[in-house]
């Protein structure tokens, strides 16, 4: 990655890991059954990858710990269901509505918390997360209470006069994959854009960022809104996948899961951390869960070990291994810890 002094280090629009990830996901219908898994699992993993990628914009890039992100995932899920059942919205409108609803709710919450950081920020996100979870449970007439919204349909995709049915898991999977690839590219561009780079600088030093003329509050607010919007998209897709929306998706549990995914995968040091983390988390849940109901206990232990001994997650371990391999050939500067803005 070394370039001549002073020269820019461009990031490609489409990178190899990006192509590999999308190709791997796209090929799952060919081999997933062969290894004893099922298509719905790939769909769910991809939805969590989306959720985790959005969450990592906050945690990894802006350094803002949100422990209540399940709320925006849930708002997306409910919004999709309500738009479909109460407003008769089609597929694309309801998915867009899910994104918009989560972004709006996120914008309102972010307005209250963006002057904070660290533990106060984290506590406020939990508090707001609980508020929405509570609303989901108590507002029976709209949310269906503890039962949630049932019988959410998977309407066909109508595009350019062509109707594509999405009822099967495989069809819905490909629909979600297109959106996933789109978000992947958008987020990748975002973190390399002036906005993303300054956001990462704000993570390191808010005071300095303000003194060189950046509107720190607005950056933090915008990062939250974008992150909530991605969570809303993931939540909307989840409602389609589950064909229901229920309070549990908003719970503190779900909010915690996405943090665990991001950290285990290595979101603090890599763009790809959340993708790895979601894969590992859901696979562990399914594979370990088949053997024991206490899978979360074992997962929790691994999580603790990880935080203690490998806080940079899987991606961090990979980077360290690569740096060790490269060290003999290049100067010491290249062995520096790779900041999160790099691959």
């Amino acid at each position, binding site marked *: 990655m*070394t*370039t001549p*002094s*002073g*020269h*820019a*280090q*461009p*990031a490609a629009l489409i990178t190899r890991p990006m192509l590999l990830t999308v190709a791997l996901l796209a090929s799952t219908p060919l081999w997933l059954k062969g290894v004893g898994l099922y298509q719905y699992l790939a769909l769910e993993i991809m939805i969590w990858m989306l959720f985790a990628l959005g969450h990592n914009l906050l945690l990894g890039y802006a350094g803002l710990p949100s422990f209540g992100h399940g709320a925006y995932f849930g708002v997306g899920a409910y919004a999709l269901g309500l738009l479909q059942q109460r407003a008769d919205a089609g597929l694309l409108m309801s998915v867009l509505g899910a994104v918009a609803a989560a972004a709006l709710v996120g914008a309102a919450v972010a307005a209250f918390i963006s002057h904070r950081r660290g533990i106060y920020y984290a506590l406020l996100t939990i508090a707001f997360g609980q508020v929405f979870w509570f609303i989901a449970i108590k507002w029976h007439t709209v949310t269906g209470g503890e039962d949630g919204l049932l019988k959410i349909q998977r309407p066909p995709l109508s595009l350019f006069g062509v109707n594509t049915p999405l009822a099967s898991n495989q069809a819905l999977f490909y629909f979600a994959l297109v959106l996933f690839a789109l978000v992947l590219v958008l987020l990748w*561009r*975002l973190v*390399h*854009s*002036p*906005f*993303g*780079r*300054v956001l*990462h*600088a704000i993570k*390191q*030093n808010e*005071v*300095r*960022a*303000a*003194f*060189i*003329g*950046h*509107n*720190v509050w607005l950056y933090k607010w915008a990062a939250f809104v974008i992150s909530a919007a991605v969570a809303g998209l993931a939540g909307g897709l989840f409602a389609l996948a589950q064909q229901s929306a229920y309070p549990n998706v908003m719970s503190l549990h779900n909010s915690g899961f996405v943090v665990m995914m991001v950290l285990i995968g290595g979101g603090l040091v890599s763009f790809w951390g959340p993708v790895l983390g979601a894969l590992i988390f859901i696979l562990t849940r399914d594979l370990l869960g088949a053997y024991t109901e206490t899978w979360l206990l074992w997962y929790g232990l691994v999580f603790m070990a990880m935080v203690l001994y490998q806080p940079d997650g899987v991606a961090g371990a990979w980077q360290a291994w690569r740096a060790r391999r490269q060290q003999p050939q290049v100067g010491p*500067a290249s062995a*520096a*810890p790779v*900041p*999160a803005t790099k691959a």
Partner: protein
Amino acid sequence: MALFEATNLHKRFGDQIVLQGISLSFEEGRLSGIMGPNGAGKTTCFNVLTGRYRPDRGQVRLAGEDITGLSPRRIARKGLSRSFQTMNLFDDERAIDNVLFALPSVRARAWSMWRDLGRDSAAHDEAAALLARVGLAGKEHTPSRRLSYGERRALEIGVALAAQPRLLFLDEPTAGLGAEGTARLFELVSELRRQVTIVIIEHDMRFLFGLADRISVIHWGQVIAEGSPDALRANPWVQRSNLGAMPA
């Protein structure tokens, strides 16, 4: 009219009065110094002047415009830039990125979420030139946390300079530097003063007396003496005050 004028600044923290009626003015094109013993209120004064704290009373004007109580961001955008005594850098970023983020050309596009900052070679050239100006040529790609102490001090100034200020405030730039580092910094500031109006808070008397056109002495939250270095050396008030060894 002075480029920067502060009148009758008051600041208290709880029941501790830190600034009581400080008035300062800095002329365009000059290098002004602020000195005073530890705890005299120098740094608080600096923080009030640069917008980090809001004064309880008094007014701050930049080029005739009232900037009292404006946020640091707004003040920075009006052309006032500062360095920090305790270094305030973007530690994970390379030296060049630290400078890059402060460039007005980058700041103007900072809401772009699509174009790749890494491809902006004009901005990178500008940043590299700036690093060269503060003596950091060849260190562009070193993460700032890996720079030596003296290099980080220089980068501190580079970041402040990158904002292309009309007025540059340097907060104890020699803090922690050895004799050699201080000498190098002296050269750097001698060079910079030709291009930008500078205000320095400094502990190191030799450094300040060698550079400043005019010095204000702050003690007990007040300006107790003001004048050229020569005039100050002769000032009995200053000689009597315990300001450390006064260079001959």
